[in-house]
């Protein structure tokens, strides 16, 4: 089903008897029960004010269309959403609704914030077929509860997004990357922490030890006016001299290529294993990996996010035990998918609230049923 208007979509949800699999571009490998409800018919930018740093678009709008419109005004989506197609071996085109529903953020999240930090307003159809609006198109808004955040990262389980307003940012003049070689995981996390504690506004901090053939590489990105980038790379190099910092990539195109690879997890594209993603305290990351049983991994967000390659079917969560963070099963062999949930199980108090919200927003349990937790009647 591909409704052409919000009203038609609301009718479909209202009259649905069976579960619906909500789909943006279908690029994220989300497999939900039921007939596919595609947002492809709700597409297009409805408002773009570069001087107010605001863009409003329908949920089915391809991210590429939005990025092209922004590029024409020298602006961009600052949260750097990944293109998951290579990693997940999917087709289609990533959409705005998908990016927001999955709260997809890239390397710049560490400095600039996540997708949810740039979502200013939403319209959605809840599981009862009601059309709801929340937030708006202004950058500061505390009028009522922030359901924008609630919808962001809810993977369509509380409502089907129909329209999203975003804060966008100017595109910096240029970027550059500082590379450090040969560091152990622990030393690399220390070096990245030192960089993040500096005033030089590092917008990317990644470390890869075991995947690249010519040894460990740590990468730090700065962006801004040309003179500023040159200055900050030099300052960082001096600051990190004790970690052996020596090589800077001043070429913007080369730097962009490095960070696109980090963003899209390209190094993990062709491996046969399951792929997990861990969020944790950066200082705990090397210890977690040491006990993970993983084949290999790389760190983004200065160690706060880890992309992990695990032998098929092995439970990374069980290997890690309790820690400050969570693990998501991003790409999995069918047998792993059957055995392990995509999302980290919630603590009982939190699970009760989440189930309560699902019961209110989708009382029949028809939107991406069971994807983020038990459906209403199972809880009752």
């Amino acid at each position, binding site marked *: 089903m591909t409704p052409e208007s919000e009203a038609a979509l609301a009718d479909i949800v209202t009259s649905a008897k069976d579960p619906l699999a909500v789909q943006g571009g279908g690029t994220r490998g989300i497999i939900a029960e039921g007939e596919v409800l595609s947002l492809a018919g709700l597409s297009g930018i409805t408002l773009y004010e570069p001087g*107010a740093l605001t863009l409003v678009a329908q949920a089915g709008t391809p991210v590429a269309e939005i990025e092209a419109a922004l590029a024409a005004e020298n602006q961009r989506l600052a949260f750097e959403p990944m293109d998951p197609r290579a990693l997940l071996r999917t087709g289609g085109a990533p959409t705005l609704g998908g990016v927001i529903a999955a709260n997809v953020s890239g390397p710049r999240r560490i400095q600039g914030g996540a997708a949810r930090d740039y979502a200013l307003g939403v319209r959605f159809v809840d599981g009862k077929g009601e059309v709801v609006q929340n937030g708006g198109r*202004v950058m500061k808004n505390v009028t*009522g509860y922030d359901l924008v955040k609630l919808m962001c990262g809810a993977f369509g389980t509380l409502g089907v997004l129909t329209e999203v307003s975003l804060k966008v940012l100017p595109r910096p003049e240029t970027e550059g990357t500082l590379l450090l070689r040969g560091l152990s995981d622990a030393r690399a996390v220390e070096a990245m922490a030192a960089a993040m504690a500096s005033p030089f506004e590092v917008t990317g901090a990644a470390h890869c030890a075991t995947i690249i053939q010519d040894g460990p590489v740590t990468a730090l990105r700065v962006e801004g006016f040309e003179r500023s980038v040159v200055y900050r790379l030099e300052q960082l190099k001096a600051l990190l001299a004790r970690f052996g910092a020596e090589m800077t990539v001043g070429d913007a195109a080369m730097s962009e290529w490095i960070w696109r690879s980090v963003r899209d997890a390209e190094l993990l594209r062709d491996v046969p294993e399951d792929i997990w993603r861990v969020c944790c305290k950066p200082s705990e990351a090397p210890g977690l990996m040491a006990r993970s049983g993983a084949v290999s991994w790389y760190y983004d967000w200065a160690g*706060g996010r880890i992309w992990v390659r695990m032998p098929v079917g092995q439970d990374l969560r069980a290997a890690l035990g309790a820690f400050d963070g969570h693990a998501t099963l991003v790409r999995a062999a069918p047998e792993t998918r059957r055995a392990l949930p995509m999302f980290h199980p919630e603590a009982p108090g939190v699970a009760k609230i989440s189930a*309560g919200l699902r019961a209110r*927003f989708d009382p029949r349990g028809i939107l991406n049923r069971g994807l983020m937790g038990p459906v209403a009647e199972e809880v009752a």
Partner: protein
Amino acid sequence: MEMPNPDPAVLARKDRVVARLKAVLPEDAVIHEETETRAYECDALTAYRCPPMVAVLPESTEQVSEVLRICHEEGVPVVPRGAGTSLAGGALPTADCVILGVARMNEVLETSYADRFVRVQTGRTNLSVTGAVEADGFFYAPDPSSQLACAIAGNIAMNSGGAHCLKYGVTTNNLLGVTMVMMDGEVVELGGAHMDAGGLDLLGLICGSEGQLSVVTEATLRILPKPEGARPVLMGFASAEVAGACVADIIKAGVLPVAIEFMDKMLIEVCEDFAKAGYPMCEALLIVEVEGSDEEIDHQLALITEIAERHDLVAVRESASPEESARIWAGRKAAFSAIGRISDYMCLDGTIPVSALPYVLRRIGEMSEQYGLPVGNVFHAGDGNMHPLICYDANKPGDLEICEAFGAEVLKLCVEAGGCLTGEHGVGIEKRDLMSHQYAPADLEAQMAVKDVFDAAWLLNPAKVFPLAVSEARRAERMAAE
């Protein structure tokens, strides 16, 4: 502003409730004598006052849990209170409520520079969070004008902003985790010290929920390294409209200052008188601040000045020293108290798209004539968050009512212009009855459904945020259940 009548059945239980609270709290932490509860009769929205039935000052999450469990069992409404600096009446009591103040919980629990966070009890003041880490080169970014006094608990409840959020975001963008207590006393942890809490974004939902969903007792806050340097420039313009156009051009040009603040003539005069910051006398003033090394600052300010010169700049002055920068900001941050020296005033907080600034400012000027009350304008221009200050005379019968009617018209104007009722102060009681102008019934129903999940009995801060008529059925259900 109407408030629900106190529940006589609750008032009748006062002695028992006080006795039960005394059994779980330190002796001096339960305040119930009428002479003493008066200290909690209002917050910074001083036009409305009502002493609570009881005020309690717990010292730990466990004590907060005990208090809420007792109030839940006794069916007593609870109004959480940080430092009582809300401009929206967020902490205004009802006569049948328990005020739950977190002011005694002000410890720093954990600091990590490696992972760049600080975990604090939420009674700690905003500025003292930065105070705990600044010697090591870090700061906590959200900086509401009241930062010397306001508590993190209130910052989270209202999702507070500040002058520098154009670059650093507001509270919700700097909050990593919370420990909170549900109305039935259950303690729940959300997020942690890592980025992107798992599952549904309940942290995002709690932030800005005005103390209606849970009581947040501990918070893990993101801290940032201090910039190498920062320098404000003062730019004077011949009219507010020209200044507004200049703001949009600066943003379009790809320069992103940390702050762009606007003041009109009335505010320039009262703030200058108060702070002696050397503001140029003109129709409209922008304070634009950029950060970086000296050379980076020079480069950005040159670009900004070049843009401003295309907008009939009538005065321009860069700060020449840290002391001068401090005075420039002291003047701006003292705007509310400076105007408070010359008049009673009501501070509005609507946000509009930056492109609508000239139109909205002109309309406010026209309304000022129509209502016969002077208005000063000071606001965060970069993000369109306005703070019109309407002056009135509290001793003149009827003046407050005229002022409130004028304020309501301005906020409706903000919504019509594509904006919202409140950018950072919150709805509280002040904007409660205007919510239906911004949201349709289904939109409000969805928000109230969230409260149903967290606080089924509608005991936490129940008479705020939603128009009384809209929330009445839910509140009545609780009364009937007793």
